């Protein structure tokens, strides 16, 4: 795969607190790579270090395809977490300013801006003053600003925060399209469900450290084990005796059986005891969302379920 960005051994401290340490990952051309983690995990610090807005204390950030030192700013599109626009200027003016800062030809930029405004349902707003836009419209304009110069690498810090579901869909689609056209995309989020459907690889960070890193499928295979949900009146001790069940959670008539990682579902279903009371049965993987919530709340489900029980 064609690497665009590599981060190696990144670390940063504020005062005496280590905010991030030992962060390693790559971003490839045409893929969507997600940095996930709860609030305060170190996502923005990592991204700001990549952008050279913060100077990391240790580690290296390498932009491939660029021989010269420093951040190739003209080739990167960046949508920061804390973002806004100048208030009393026209939408087109500010977009052209962003393009000019990136040395992108202005006539092309104007064309692209109009195209994007149309795509984002903002047609005819190019001469409207920014302070007359709604918050959602403003977010769309910021997004356009970050991609107007056709960046090689697009870095989006919490792109979905504060967006309504419709706009979220629009953004998601656009990000996927950009990736398809070959843009390398690095995005951070704490909304797992959104990211799960779109990203190719992910880096899960907690308390400034790597928890999970890999492709979506790998991660699902490795960490997201199967679980079997059974509706019916069953005795807990009986459920626990079933082969390859690692843990049972019961609530009212619903029992969730967490299965070991090497389970083969078709075989496992065949050997279920006939005495079980089954009104409904479903088998699916533990979602990333659940892993994420558990990590954030320090229950370490991934470890309990997958690797070794730490306790």
């Amino acid at each position, binding site marked *: 795969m064609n690497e665009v960005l590599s981060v190696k051994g990144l670390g940063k401290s504020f005062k005496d607190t280590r905010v991030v340490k030992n962060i390693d990952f790559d971003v490839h051309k045409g893929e969507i790579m997600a940095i996930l983690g709860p609030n305060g995990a170190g996502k923005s610090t990592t991204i*700001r270090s990549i*952008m*050279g*807005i913060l100077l990391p204390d240790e580690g290296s950030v390498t932009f491939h395809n660029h021989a010269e030192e420093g951040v190739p*700013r*003209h080739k*990167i*599109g*960046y*949508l*920061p977490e*804390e*973002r*806004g*626009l*100048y*208030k*009393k*200027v026209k939408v087109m*003016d500010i977009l052209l*300013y*962003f393009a*000019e*800062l*990136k040395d992108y030809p202005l006539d092309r930029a104007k064309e692209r801006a109009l195209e994007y405004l149309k795509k984002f349902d903002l047609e005819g707003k190019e001469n409207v003053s920014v302070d007359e836009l709604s918050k959602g419209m403003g977010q769309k304009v*910021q997004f356009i*600003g*970050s991609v107007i110069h056709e960046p090689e690498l697009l870095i989006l810090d919490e792109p979905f925060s504060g967006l309504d579901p419709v706009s979220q869909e629009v953004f998601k689609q656009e990000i996927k399209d950009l990736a398809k056209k070959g843009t390398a995309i690095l995005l951070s989020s704490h909304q797992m469900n959104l990211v799960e459907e779109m990203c190719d690889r992910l880096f899960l960070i907690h308390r400034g450290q790597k928890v999970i890193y890999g492709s979506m499928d790998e991660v699902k295979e490795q960490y997201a084990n199967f679980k079997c949900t059974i509706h019916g009146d069953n005795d807990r001790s009986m459920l626990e005796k079933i082969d390859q069940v690692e843990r049972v959670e019961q609530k009212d008539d619903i029992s969730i059986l967490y299965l070991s990682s090497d389970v083969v579902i078709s075989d496992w279903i065949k050997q279920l005891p006939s005495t079980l009371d089954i009104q409904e049965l479903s088998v699916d993987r533990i979602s990333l969302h659940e892993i994420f919530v558990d990590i954030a709340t320090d229950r370490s489900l991934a470890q309990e379920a997958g690797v070794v029980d730490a306790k």
Partner: protein
Amino acid sequence: MRNSWKVAKWEIKRNLKSKSFLISLFLTPIIFAIFATVPTLLSDSGEDHDSEPAQTTVYLNDEIGIWDQLEPMVSKGGDLHWDVELTDQSSVEMTATLEEETQSVYIHLDESALESGKVDYYTSEEVPDSFQYEVQLFEQPLRYVQLERTGLDESEIQSAMIPISFNQNEVTMEAGDDVGEEQAQGVEAFLEKFVPGVFAGLVLFSIAITGMMVFQSASEEKKEKVAEIILSSVTAGELMQGKIIGYFVLGILQVTVWIGMALPVALALVDYPIIQYLLVPETLLFLLIAVLGYLMFASIFVGLGATLEDSSSGSNFQGFVFMIPWLPFIFMGPVISNPESTLSQVLSYVPFTSPGIMILRLSILDEWPWLQILISIVILIVSIWLLMKLAGKIFRIGILIYGKNATLPEIWKWLRS
């Protein structure tokens, strides 16, 4: 540098398109003109009202008989607003009248006054202070009578009465023999430096104001959270420089417009060839000092702006920094009264007061202290370099801190990092 220029261009364009900037650009000189002229107009019209009742009633008991000589002068009017009534009443009798009336005076000229050289006069309430000078009018005729009584003839009296006056003639190195010409040159030489000085003062004033705009702009960048987007394209240093350059151009533009509006008025009102005085080499030095002053204040303000999200909630510290450009005004009095004093010299070496004080001193001084000028310019340049570095540090960190104002200890920490 190219990036700084892009930022500068944006700041210029953005301000030129904003109504508030344009309004203040054209309104400020008008407001100045209003403030300068309205009080004079008001007081003028006030005087017109008062001029009629301003007549002072003078009761004159003239036992010597000099009134005949004076009457034509008094009744001709001129500066005197006297309403003279001859009387033969004594001071005791007049007391009652004076108590009742206002703005009335009783003067008794008699033999004893002539002998002792003391004339008593009695005033009612509301007699203007200027009366004590106006009453000197009686001196010459009285003196004449005095001398006449000693038996001098007319020509002797005339020569005795020529007043002796003392004229100052300052001897400077270039002083010519011709005193009159030297004086005329003095006025010209004064204007030659004063006009560029006023010009430079105007430039400095205007750019101190645009310095404030740099502050606002940096603070806005932070408040509206655009900074991080911009910083993905340019470095913090370039953004800062761009702002400083951009507002510098705006400041110059402002001065140009103001002078463009003020110069025709000044030319119409004043006879001196102002433009000729303005186009002298001295103006360049004044401008250099003013520009250096701007760079210093702008770097202070841009750094300060990056620490404040909301200028209304600034702490005392930040408020104090705001006062810095106005420091020279405090010392204006002492410096004008003695531009060569130690205080004046020291203030020329203190970076914060140096631009204002130097411009002020150089406008007044005949002989320029070149060594002092050189030292103070070097000090200025060094402090600008230093302040820019410090401002850069503060700006770089401060602009990315959201939702709060930086405290002094925090700023101190950034400076040391």
